[in-house]
């Protein structure tokens, strides 16, 4: 529905798209490394998300790219041209801030005129560009308002228009949706993605919200303690997390610790206590293994399922979310497992104390590095 509304809006002029290289970037605060030897390629026209918990260095990388943080070491290049020592106002990057950072004493249209004004464009000469930008974010009818007279979502649209009106080489977004309520956030995710598709500008997006990262990005870089933990497209990251941290931070996972015990071409066996599990892939025997299992990939049935992995358990707790049930199942051998089942086709009676069977295919779970 959000997309049909977008389709009727005017197309902006096509703009050249740029690539960014970050090479061995480090930033130390005293002896603390906020960013520790990070190298990153952002290909032109991509929507790249830096995802991580607070203190992971994502914002520092963005601020170094914008020019507000001087790196301790490393280089930043735009289309192979070094920009590491360029001041922020000479970089020609649009930036959208957490909390919008609109100028409170200027009207909406003066806010959007601002980047053109500092480039020596008079208000009358800028009128057309300002109007086009306002149309782009559906804010034309509120051009004369002051920022304090707008809602959070409207302010964020103005901030976007302001960051795009001067045709920046890159658009940097620093947790732009974090101040909005959940529903509005979801709507704006559609809009941002569609805006990116139509403009072709390279977007670099910083967030701690895994849902935002999954829904919008072409590529996600997961950061932890100033280092890149894993990067890839959203599906690859979600389906094949390399480490326990990624499996836990991006979506939810159950973790099962065990010992590998030989296998064949189909996969290998994992001994977890008294239970033997079947896991796809290969692994040398007698190695400790950590298996990550997504809650939605488990089946819950009354009778024993016809699956290579099956284990009985008892419902210890459940939550209802409208579309899904979240069940906490005590299995004894494998500890408590969390299971998500679609509420409309839940076969079992989700009451505390009920006996159920859990089951999954060998390729439903992945082996992750414990860290």
């Amino acid at each position, binding site marked *: 529905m959000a997309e049909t509304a977008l389709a009727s809006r005017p197309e902006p002029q096509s703009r050249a798209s740029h690539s960014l290289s970050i090479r061995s970037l480090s930033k130390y605060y005293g002896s603390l490394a906020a960013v520790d030897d990070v190298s990153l390629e952002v290909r032109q026209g991509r929507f790249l998300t830096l995802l991580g918990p607070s203190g992971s260095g994502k914002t520092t990388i963005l601020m170094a790219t914008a020019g507000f943080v001087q790196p301790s070491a490393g280089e930043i290049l735009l289309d192979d041209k070094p920009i590491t020592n360029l001041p922020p106002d000479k970089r020609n990057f649009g*930036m959208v801030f957490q909390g919008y950072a609109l100028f409170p004493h200027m009207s909406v249209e003066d806010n959007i005129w601002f980047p053109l004004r*500092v480039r020596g464009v008079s208000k009358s000469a800028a009128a057309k560009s300002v109007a086009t930008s306002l149309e782009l974010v559906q804010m034309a009818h509120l051009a004369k308002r002051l920022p304090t007279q707008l809602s959070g979502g409207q302010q964020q649209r103005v901030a976007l228009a*302001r960051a795009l009106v001067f045709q920046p080489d890159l658009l940097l977004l620093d947790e732009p949706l974090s101040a909005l309520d959940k529903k509005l956030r979801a709507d704006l995710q559609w809009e941002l993605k569609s805006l990116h598709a139509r403009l072709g500008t390279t977007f670099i997006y910083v967030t701690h919200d895994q849902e935002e990262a999954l829904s919008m990005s072409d590529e996600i870089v997961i950061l932890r303690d100033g280092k890149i933990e894993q990067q890839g497209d959203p599906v690859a990251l979600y389906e094949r997390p390399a480490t326990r941290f990624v499996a836990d931070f991006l979506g939810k996972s159950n973790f099962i610790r065990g010992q590998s015990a030989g296998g064949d071409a189909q996969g290998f066996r994992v001994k977890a206590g008294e239970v033997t599990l079947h896991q796809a892939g290969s692994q040398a025997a007698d190695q400790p293994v950590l298996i990550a299992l997504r809650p939605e990939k488990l089946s819950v049935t009354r009778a024993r399922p016809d699956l290579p992995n099956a284990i009985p358990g008892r419902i210890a707790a459940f939550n209802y979310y409208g579309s899904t049930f979240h069940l906490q199942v005590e299995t004894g051998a494998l500890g408590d497992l969390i299971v998500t089942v679609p509420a409309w086709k839940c076969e079992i009676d989700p009451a505390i104390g009920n006996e159920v069977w859990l089951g999954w295919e060998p390729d439903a779970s992945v082996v992750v590095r414990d860290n």
Partner: protein
Amino acid sequence: MKGDFREKFGRGLVLGGAWTVLAFLILPMVVIFPVSVTDQYYLSMPKDGISLAHYAAFFTNEIWLSATAQSVIIATCSTIFAVILGSLCAIGCWRLSTGLSESVRTFMLIPIIVPTIVQALAMYRFWIDLGIIDTYVGVILAHTLVAIPYVIITVSASLANFDLRQEQAARSLGASMPQTIRWVIVPSILPGVLSGALFAFTISFDEIVMVLFITSRAIYTLPKRIWNGIEDHLDPTIAAVATMLIAVTLALLLLDLWTRHRRQQRLRAAAAEE
């Protein structure tokens, strides 16, 4: 019954006390007004009718007019210097925002803490060495020094509400630092700067202790002229001058309140609309 009486009595006592204190604060100022329109030739209440002769005397007497002019010149100059220096200091401390800059800011408040008479004495000794006793430069310098802390306080307060991301936004949108200061920072902290200017002007305009110490014959500010007038002959023109001073101060205060009220109303209207 008894408890009721006691409660009423207690209430009356508190209210009576409050009104007495208020009267004590306000009456001396109110008494000035009837004295200023007296028809007598000495400081007294009107006897046979009211007269504006003493107001007329003020506006025709070269001595009073010159004192007013001197006060206005001194207050204007020290306001300008105090606002520039105080704002720059506040912005600098805010930008650095280190332990040292915090101590600098606290250090700058010393003129408020040290008793004026001590400062006046110190300045007297020092100004003699500098050779600026009884000059405009000396008085403007002294008044600038005492007004700076007030400007620092008001400007720092508005900077505390300024979102650093606005500065970053301006820079990322292509504004150089001078452009950012002119178009983004200064408009945002203007209310604080104006408030500081108002303080600085008022402080300089009715400051007397320092003026008595560091001036003799050449400089006669309005407060000093009033002081001398009371000592020499009890001319009711003093009451007329005092009344006008109170009126001007009151007008400035109301102006400040009114602009604040309007700002708040605008914000509240904006919030209601949202």
